[in-house]
């Protein structure tokens, strides 16, 4: 029972972080038709910014906010500076080819990932460093019973929960949210409604940047920070997005939690070195059994 609770709580708090990563991936995939392999590279970079600020005696919370804002800016820069010019060029012979239209952005995002990692390595020496958490990571106790959850876990779950609620309100209750959903579903009708689809697209890159930046801030107190630490998070987030449905925002969050539990239970009941194998098997199973994802619709994948 004890190990079950341990797995359950760690699955929930880790799953919450995976949900953010997967949400970020899905936002850009829906909005721009690109799976952004540089996403966690961007998050790594903004987490380094926060870490640098904290070293320079800024408070945790001001560093936290600045990291989120720089995540948004970095996302917007990637879109405006690279992805938009890449995908809007009509005459390139290579882009006339169906498969190349999806391949080129993937390669471009890998290029950004490489550059970000190298720049972070040069600026911050590249060796692993710790990243503080605002709340002690001690197990909580009630009386003399020690619970299987730490204060930091609760903090993570709370922050992600608030983020998801705000995101839901943004998408379902605001005009900008409606514009984002509409441009993802049907860019032409949306443009004909007078909405600047290009700007909406940049906004989805920015929101995705913020979400992944938040994931970086929440995961590094446990994993430490180095140019490569967040690579695994991208893979897990990708798996979560595929499991939930690459074109469904709700699905991406659900997928994040499912993958969180799978990893936590494999970790507790099997061995940590089996985690990767489990992810691969889980991803392949998902692709074969339900390639459109749990909450995804079929048509969009057929592009």
């Amino acid at each position: 029972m004890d190990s079950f609770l341990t797995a359950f709580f760690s699955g929930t708090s880790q799953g919450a972080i995976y949900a953010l990563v997967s949400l970020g991936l899905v936002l850009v995939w829906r909005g721009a038709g690109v799976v952004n392999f540089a996403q966690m590279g961007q998050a790594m970079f903004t987490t380094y910014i926060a870490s640098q600020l904290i070293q320079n005696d800024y408070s945790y919370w001001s560093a936290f906010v600045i990291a989120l804002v720089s995540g948004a800016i970095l996302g917007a820069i990637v879109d405006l500076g690279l992805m938009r010019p890449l995908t809007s060029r009509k005459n390139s012979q290579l882009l006339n080819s169906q498969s190349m239209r999806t391949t080129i952005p993937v390669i471009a995002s890998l290029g950004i990932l490489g550059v970000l990692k190298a720049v972070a390595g040069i600026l911050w020496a590249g060796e692993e460093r710790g990243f503080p958490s605002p709340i002690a990571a001690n197990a909580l106790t009630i009386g003399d019973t020690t619970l299987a959850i730490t204060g930091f876990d609760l903090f993570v779950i709370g922050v992600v929960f608030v983020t998801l609620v705000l995101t839901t309100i943004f998408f379902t209750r605001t005009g900008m949210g409606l514009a984002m959903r509409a441009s993802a579903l049907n860019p032409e009708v949306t443009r004909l409604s007078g909405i600047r689809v290009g700007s909406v697209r940049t906004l989805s890159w920015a929101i995705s940047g913020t979400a992944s930046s938040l994931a970086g801030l929440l995961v590094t107190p446990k994993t430490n920070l180095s140019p490569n630490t967040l690579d695994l998070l991208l893979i897990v987030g990708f798996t979560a997005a595929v499991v939930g449905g690459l074109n469904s925002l709700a699905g991406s969050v659900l997928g994040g939690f499912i993958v969180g539990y799978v990893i936590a239970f494999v970790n507790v009941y099997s061995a940590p070195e089996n985690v990767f194998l489990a992810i691969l098997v889980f991803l392949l199973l998902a692709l074969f059994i339900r390639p459109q994802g749990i909450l995804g619709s079929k048509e969009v994948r057929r592009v």
Partner: protein
Amino acid sequence: MLIISNLVTEFASIKALNDISFQAKPGCITTVIGANGAGKSTLLRTISGLERPTSGSIKWFDEELTHKSVESIVRSGIAQVPEGHAVISQLSVAENIELGGLFRKRIARGDLAIATKEVYELFPILFERRREPAGSLSGGERQMLAISRALVSRPKLLLLDEPSLGLAPLISAQIISTVNELCKSTGLTVLLVEQNANTALAVADHGILLALGKVIANLPAKELIADSSLRAAYLGY
């Protein structure tokens, strides 16, 4: 007044529109007819900015539209209802309508509410089904929704691309007569593209016959209806 002069639109050096010139008068329906591939949709898509013309010009009164972006063309009062009942089927009916007026939300919130109320009055069935996804509507209802989405932006010029496509004659006649009443009551200018000439020309003031990207005839609608030899030659009936 929509003034189109010497408009040419090319796809890979094939001229889909070849030197088109005509005018559409305010408060009137101008109908463009022609067989499949005559360039009718390309004409509307070029006016709304979805396609870039190679040469020629498109003017709305004194305003040059030729090289503006789709978004700014829509914002200057020109709304297109694209072919095939283009609504966003995953969004609800109300959201589709909201989308059409979204860009005016900050500048004219009050008028937006009125415009929304007006389209619901025009098509009461949409009000009844406003919470349902647009994908669950029938073909005719979707066309009504597509037109409503355009109307909430309070356009001065409405571009309708084959609204009767795939609809029962009775329903398409009803939709076209609603549009006709709207023109007469509000002074809306309508450019209507149809393959099926009869109903479309019956409500129109002016008719243009298009074939292989060229204007073959530019006549008052009544004369075009009467000219059976032109129709036989270019439309086959």
